[in-house]
C-alpha cells in the first residue's frame, strides 16, 4: 500500500511539473504579449524610449518588478499601489501623470507582456523589403489584341481574295456581274458596324453615367505621409484607438492632433520599419513626416516638456470615402451593433501605406452586403444583440427550423428609408 501511495504521489508530482512546464511554455507567448502591449500599453509606453510613461526595456531589473505579482498589482490598481510605494510616486512626479488602471490584466498577461518587452528590447535589423512584382495581365492583353488584329486583317484579305477570284471565274465563264462594291459601301457591313457601335456606345455611356461621381481606387496625396501599414499593420494599433467615434457615432472621424501626440511625443524617428515609397516610387523619409506632425502640433523635440497642446493646429486631411448628401451611413450601427470588421469595407488597410478607396461605395455594393449578411440573433450564447429579441416571429421560426438564419434584408435592410431620409 505504501508503495502505491508513493507511486501515486510521484505520478502526481510528475503530472504537476509537466503541467507547469506547458503552462510556463505558454507563459512565454511573445505573440500574445505583443497583442496585449499594442492594445493596451503602446499608446503611452515604448520599449526603448520614454514616452508618456517610461521606456519599458529592462523593466525587470527595476524596483520590485522582477516579481510579476507586484507588477500586476501595480497595473491593476496604480492608485492603491502608489499610496504605499515611494518608487511609483516618484514615477508619477517624473512623468506628470498617473498610469491608467487595467484591472483586467492577469498574471499570465503580465508574463506575456514582459516576454514581449524583453524580446523587443533586442534590436533586430529589419529585413530589406521585397521588390514588387510587375503585373502580367496587361502584357497578355496587348499580345492577344495584336494577334486578333493580325487575324482580322488576314481574314479581310482572304475575303477580298475570295471575291476577286470569284469575279475572275465569273468573267471567264462569261457571267455578267455588277460592278464591285467596295466593302465600306456595302450596306450589310455598314448596318453591322453601326449596330456594333450603337451597342458598344450605349454600353459605355450607361457605364460611364452609372460610374459618375464614384471614386473607387481614389488615393489622394495627404498632407502627411501617414502609413496605415506601419501603424495598424506592423504595430497593430487597434483601429478604434484612433477612430474611436466609429464605436459611438455615424462618423468614424479622423483623430485629433493630440491623439497622434499621445504616442509621437516619444516616437520621433522612423527607423525600424520597412522603407516607405510614395506612388511615384520616390522614397519617403518617415522621420521627416513625423516632423510635419510636430509642426502642426507645435511640438519641439528639443524641449518636449514645454509642449502646449492647446497651441496645436488641426491637420487638413483629404477625405477619401465620400457619400452623397442623401445617403445616411452610420459607423456605430455597423461596427458596434453589426460587428462588421473595418476591413470589410475599407479593405486590407493594414497593408496600405497610403489609404485607397477599395470599395465602390455604390448602392448596389451596399445592398449586396445587406442581402448576404446574417444578423446574429443568438443573444443568449454567442453575443448577439439583445435588441433583436423584439423579433419574436423570427426567433420562433429559427427555433422551428423554418428559417436557418436571419439576414439583414429580413429586418428591413433593403428598404429605401434605411439610408435615405
Amino acid at each position: 500500500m505504501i508503495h502505491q501511495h508513493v507511486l501515486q504521489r510521484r505520478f502526481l508530482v510528475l503530472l504537476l511539473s509537466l503541467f507547469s512546464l506547458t503552462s510556463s511554455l505558454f507563459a512565454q507567448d511573445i505573440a500574445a504579449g505583443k497583442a496585449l502591449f499594442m492594445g493596451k500599453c503602446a499608446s503611452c509606453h515604448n520599449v526603448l524610449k520614454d514616452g508618456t510613461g517610461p521606456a519599458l526595456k529592462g523593466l525587470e531589473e527595476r524596483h520590485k518588478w522582477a516579481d510579476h505579482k507586484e507588477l500586476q498589482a501595480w497595473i491593476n490598481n496604480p492608485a492603491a499601489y502608489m499610496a504605499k510605494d515611494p518608487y511609483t510616486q516618484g514615477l508619477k512626479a517624473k512623468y506628470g501623470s498617473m498610469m491608467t488602471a487595467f484591472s483586467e490584466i492577469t498574471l499570465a498577461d503580465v508574463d506575456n507582456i514582459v516576454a514581449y518587452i524583453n524580446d523587443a528590447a533586442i534590436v533586430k535589423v529589419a529585413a530589406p523589403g521585397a521588390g514588387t512584382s510587375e503585373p502580367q495581365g496587361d502584357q497578355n492583353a496587348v499580345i492577344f489584341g495584336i494577334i486578333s488584329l493580325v487575324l482580322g486583317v488576314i481574314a479581310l484579305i482572304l475575303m477580298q481574295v475570295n471575291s476577286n477570284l470569284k469575279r475572275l471565274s465569273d468573267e471567264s465563264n462569261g457571267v455578267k456581274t455588277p460592278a464591285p462594291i467596295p466593302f465600306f459601301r456595302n450596306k450589310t457591313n455598314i448596318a453591322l458596324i453601326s449596330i456594333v457601335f450603337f451597342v458598344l456606345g450605349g454600353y459605355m455611356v450607361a457605364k460611364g453615367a452609372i460610374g459618375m461621381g464614384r471614386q473607387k481606387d481614389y488615393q489622394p496625396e495627404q498632407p502627411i505621409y501617414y502609413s496605415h501599414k506601419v501603424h495598424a499593420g506592423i504595430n497593430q494599433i487597434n483601429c478604434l484607438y484612433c477612430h474611436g467615434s466609429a464605436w459611438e457615432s455615424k462618423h468614424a472621424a479622423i483623430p485629433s492632433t493630440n491623439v497622434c501626440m499621445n504616442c509621437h511625443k516619444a516616437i520621433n524617428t522612423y527607423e525600424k520599419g520597412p522603407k516607405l515609397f510614395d506612388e511615384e516610387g520616390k522614397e519617403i523619409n518617415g522621420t521627416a513626416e513625423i516632423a510635419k506632425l510636430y509642426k502642426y502640433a507645435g511640438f519641439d523635440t528639443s524641449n518636449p516638456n514645454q509642449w502646449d497642446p492647446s497651441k496645436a493646429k488641426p491637420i487638413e486631411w483629404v477625405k477619401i470615402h465620400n457619400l452623397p448628401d442623401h445617403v445616411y451611413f452610420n459607423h456605430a450601427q455597423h461596427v458596434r451593433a453589426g460587428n462588421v470588421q473595418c476591413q470589410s469595407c475599407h479593405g486590407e488597410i493594414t497593408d496600405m501605406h497610403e489609404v485607397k478607396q477599395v470599395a465602390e461605395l455604390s448602392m448596389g455594393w451596399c445592398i449586396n452586403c445587406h442581402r448576404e449578411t446574417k444578423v446574429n440573433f443568438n443573444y443568449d450564447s454567442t453575443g448577439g444583440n439583445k435588441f433583436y429579441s423584439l423579433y419574436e416571429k423570427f426567433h420562433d421560426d429559427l427555433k422551428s427550423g423554418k428559417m436557418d438564419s436571419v439576414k439583414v434584408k429580413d429586418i428591413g435592410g433593403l428598404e429605401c428609408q434605411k439610408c435615405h431620409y
Partner: protein
Amino acid sequence: MSQNKYWQSFGEVKSGESFRQQTQDEFREELPFEGFDGTLADAKAPRRDFLKYLGFSTAAATLAASCEIPVKKVIPYANKPENLIPGVAQYYATTYVQEGDVVPVLAKVRDGRPIKIEGNQLENSSFAHGGTSARVQASVLDLYDQHRLRYPQQKKGDSFQEVPTYEQLDKLIAEQMKAAGGTTVLLTSTLNSPSTQAIVNGFVGLKHVQYDAVSYSGLLLANEACGFGRQLPSYDFSKANVVVSLGADFLGTWLSPVEFAKGYTVGRKVDAKNPTMSKHYQFEGYLSLTGASADERFVHRPSQTGAVALALLAALNGGAVALSDAKLKAGVEKVAADLNKSKGKSLVVCGSNDKNIQVVVNAINQAIGAFGSTIDWSRPANYRKGIDSDMTALVEAMEAGQVGTLMIYGANPVYNYHDADRFAAALKKVKLTVSFNERMDETTEQCMFSVPAPHYLESWGDANPKAGVTCFQQPTIHPLFKTRPFQTSLLKWSGNDTDYDVYFKNYWNNQPGGEAAFNEGLQNGLKEEARAGSGAGSYSSAALAGATAALNAYAAVNGTEVVLYQKTSIGTGTGATNPWLQELPDGVSKATWDNYALMSMPMAKELLKLDLMHGTEKEINNYEFYPQKPVVKITMGKKEVELPVIVVPGMQSNTIAIAVGYGRGEKLGKTAAGVGQNAYVFSSFDGTTVSYQGSVTLADAGRKHKVATTQIHGTYDDRTEVVRETTLATLVKYPNTIPDYRNHLEEAYGKGSDTTDFRKNATLYGEHVQPGIKWGMNIDMNACYGCGACVVACNAENNVPVVGKSEVLRYHDMHWLRIDRYFVSDATDPNQLKGVVFQPMMCQHCDNAPCENVCPVAATNHSAEGINQMTYNRCIGTRYCANNCPFKVRRFNWADYTGADSFPNNRDQQVVGKLDPVVEQMNDDLTRMVLNPDVTVRSRGVIEKCSFCFQRLQAAKLEAKKQNRPLADGDAKTACQTACSANAIVFGNVHDKESEIAQVRTSNHSRSYYVLEQLHVLPNVSYLAKVRNTDELIEPQAHHVAVEEHAPAAGEKAPAHH
C-alpha cells in the same frame, strides 16, 4: 335635434358640391409650358424649340454632372474636447426667457451648433413639464438670424457706425453719461432674473422701469387692492373642475400658456369608463384660440366685460343678473350655478387689463373658494411686472428733460407703446439713449447707441418665474457675433469691472447650497425650493365697492368695437422676424404672413355686402376660394388703419379683432418688413391702465388684399368622417357609436370573402408584415388647442422649407404637419358656433397606402416597421402620390426652396417665378446652420411628407443596440410629440402591448378611431374623438355611407372567391 355640421370654410357649409369642384384639384396649375396656346405648330414654343430645350438641358445636365469631383477636406479637432463625439448630439438644459415668459428647455447641440429646442421634462418638478410653445420652438432660428445686430454701434448723423472695441464704447458711454446728468433710467420688459436684479440694485442712482408690450398691470393692481400685493399668483388649472375665462386666452397667449395648457389638459382627458371632464366656459368678444376649445362660449361686446363680471358675481351671490342679452344672461346664470356647485374646485380668469374688472374677478374667485386651491398665492409668479402708470411717468419725465440717460433692454415702445409717437418724441429729449436689443427694431433705430445683447442660447443667465423656482441659462454655442450681455454693460458702466459671466457664477456660488447646488441647477436647468409659507396676504374686499361703482358708471358703447389680441406665433411682435412663425398658420383663421380684421358674419353682410349665409353660391365660393379679401378702413379718432377682412363664425356681431405684432420697421429684415399693419395704435391709456379695446368706425375701403390662408388647400371631398366630435352626454349614452361603425365596416368588407380579418379583406395587395417593431401614433383631439408648437417643431426637426407668402398663396406651402380647423355648428346656421375641432393632420402611414400603388418609380413604399417611406432621390416628381392621397398631406417642392439643387442658385426660375426674399434669407449660410444634418435637404421637383421623424427612430434603435437591450417604450419620440405641452400626441411600438400607444388605443375604445376608415387604407395614426362637455345629445346616424363605392373594395375582390 338637427344634425351638426363640421365645416372648414363657408364655401363648404353653404354650397358643398360646387365649392368642392372648385377646390378639388390637388395641383390646379397648368403645366408650365410658356406661351403654349392654340395648336402645337402655332405655339410660341413649337416642337423645334422643345427639341432645342431638350438638347440643351441634357447637355447641361451631363456637363454639370461630369465635372471633376471636388476634393473634400476632413479637418479633425486639434484637441478634441473630452466628452464630445462628432456626429452625436448633446443636450444642454437652459431656459427660454423673453418678455417675462419663462420656459425651461433643452437645447440639442450637434457638433457645436444648437439645432433644436426640446421641452425640459424633469421628474418631480413642479415647473419643468416638458412642453413648449411655437415661439419657443422657433427661437433657435432667431439665433441664426442674419438681421441680428453684430457689433456695438454709435449713431452718427442718420446712420449707425461701428464702435471698434468695447473699451472705446465704455469710455464713450462713461463720458456721455457724465455729461448728460439727470436721472439714469433702465427701461426693460419684465425682468425676472435675480442676478440681473442684483446688478440693477447695485447701480447707484439707476431707476428701473419695467414695461410690457401687452400689459397686465390691471391684474397686478387689482391683486394689490385685494390684499395680495402687487404680484401675480400661480394658477393651477389641473385642480379646476370648472374653468371660466372672461376673455383670457390662457391656452394661447395669456401669461404662461405652456404651463396652463399642461394643467388644463388634466381635466380634459376622458374615456367612456370614466366619463367625467372639466367644464370650460368662455366669455369673449371674438373667437380666440382658447375660446375655440371651450365647451360653451358666450359672446359679448368687449366693453361689456365688466358688466359680465359683475353679473356673474351677482349671480353667484344669488342676486339678479342685469344683462339685456337673453342668451348672455342665461349663460351667466348657468355658469354661476355650475361654479356654486363646485366651490373650491373652480377657477375664473380674466384677460382684461382693467383694474376694476380684475377686482371683481378676484371677488368672484373669493366667492367660489379658488384662493388656496386653484389660485396659489404661496408661489407668486413673476411673468409680468410692468405697471402702466410707471411708463407714463417715465415719458413725462423724459419730456421734461429730467432723464439724462435711458438704457433699453427687451422693450420696444417706439413700436408698441399706446402713444408711440409721443414716446419717440420724448426719446429725442433724452441726452443719451442706449439700446441693448438684439435687432435694429423701431426703438433701437431712434437710440444713439446700439449695444446688442447675445441670444439666449449664447448666454449665461437665470430667471425666477415664480417664488421658489429658479431657471438657469447656459451658453450652448460660442457667441456668433461681437455681442455683449447687457448685464456686463451695466456692471462696467456702474464702475464694476466684472464680466456678467463671472458675476453670475459668483452670485450663485454664494447662494445657499453653494457651488454644488448651482452646478446641479445648471445640469437640471432649474432649481426648486420648498413652498415658502401659505401665501402673500389674504383676500380683502375693500376695493370691491369702488370697482363696482366704477364699472357701473362705464358708458355703454353702441357702434363697432375693436379688440386686440396676440397670435401664438407672433406674440407681442417678437415673432415677427422669424420666418417659421410668420409662415405658421394661425389656429383659428389659418392665415399666414398677415394680420387682418376678424369680422362677424352679420357685420360682413352689412358692411361689405358679403352674405356668407344666404348669398349666392358663387359669391360665397369666390370669397373663400380666391385669396383677395375685402379691405376695410378702421378709424379710431385720428388713427386710421386699412386691413383685409377674414370672416369667422362665433364673433360678437359688432366686434372686430386684430392681432398685434405686425407692421414692423424695414430694418428688422426681410421677414418682418411689409407684413401687416401695426394694431397697437388702437390701444389707449385710461389714466390707470392701457386698454386693448375701443370704439372704432369702419368703412369699406373698396379694394382687396391677398391673404394667404391654408385651410382650403387640402379638401376631403366631403368625407366628414375624417373628423369625429361628440358631446359628453352623447358619449355616456352611446359609448359604442365609433366601435359600432367599425364593426359595420368589418361586416361590409367581409361580405363574400372567406376570411374574417378586416385588414386582409378587400385589398388587391398583399399584407405588409412587421416582424419586429410597428410604429404607431395616437392624437387626442381633446388635448389639441391649435397652438402650432408641433408644426414649428416639425419644421425645425425635418428641415421643412419656408416658402414665403407668394408661394403659400399658390398652395405651395410645405408643412408636413398641419392643424385642420373645423367649425361645428347647426347645419342651418353657421354663425351659431357650437365648438371648434383642431385636428393635427400629417401622413397617416397607411398600411394599405394609396400613394404607394401609383408611384411609377416606387419612390414611396412600405417599410417592415409600418412606415410609409418617401425616398427623395428616387422621386421623379410625377405627383401621382399626392393626387391619390385622401388626406392631402404630401408636399411638392415646386422650387429649390432650400438650395439643395445641383445647379447653384436655382431658386428663381420661370416655372415658379421670383420667390420671396425670405426664401433667400433661409438659404443664407448663417441661417442654414439650423439645418438638421441627419435629414436630407430636398431639392426641387420631389415630393416630401411626414416620416414619423425617422431619423429619431433610427437613433433610438441604435442607442438600444449600443446598450445591448431591447427598445424601451418612450425611447423614440417624434418632434411634434415632445413639443406638445398638452401631451396630445402619443407615439411608440404598437407591437409592445405594454407601451403607452398600445394602452391608449385599447383603453379608450369608445373614442379611438382612424380617419376615413371606410377607404380601408389602414392608417397607423389613430385619433381620439373630440368631446365637448355639454348636455347636447347627438343621435347616431345609420351607416349608409359605410363602404365607398369607388374604393378598390369588396366588389372587386369578392368575385375572385366565387
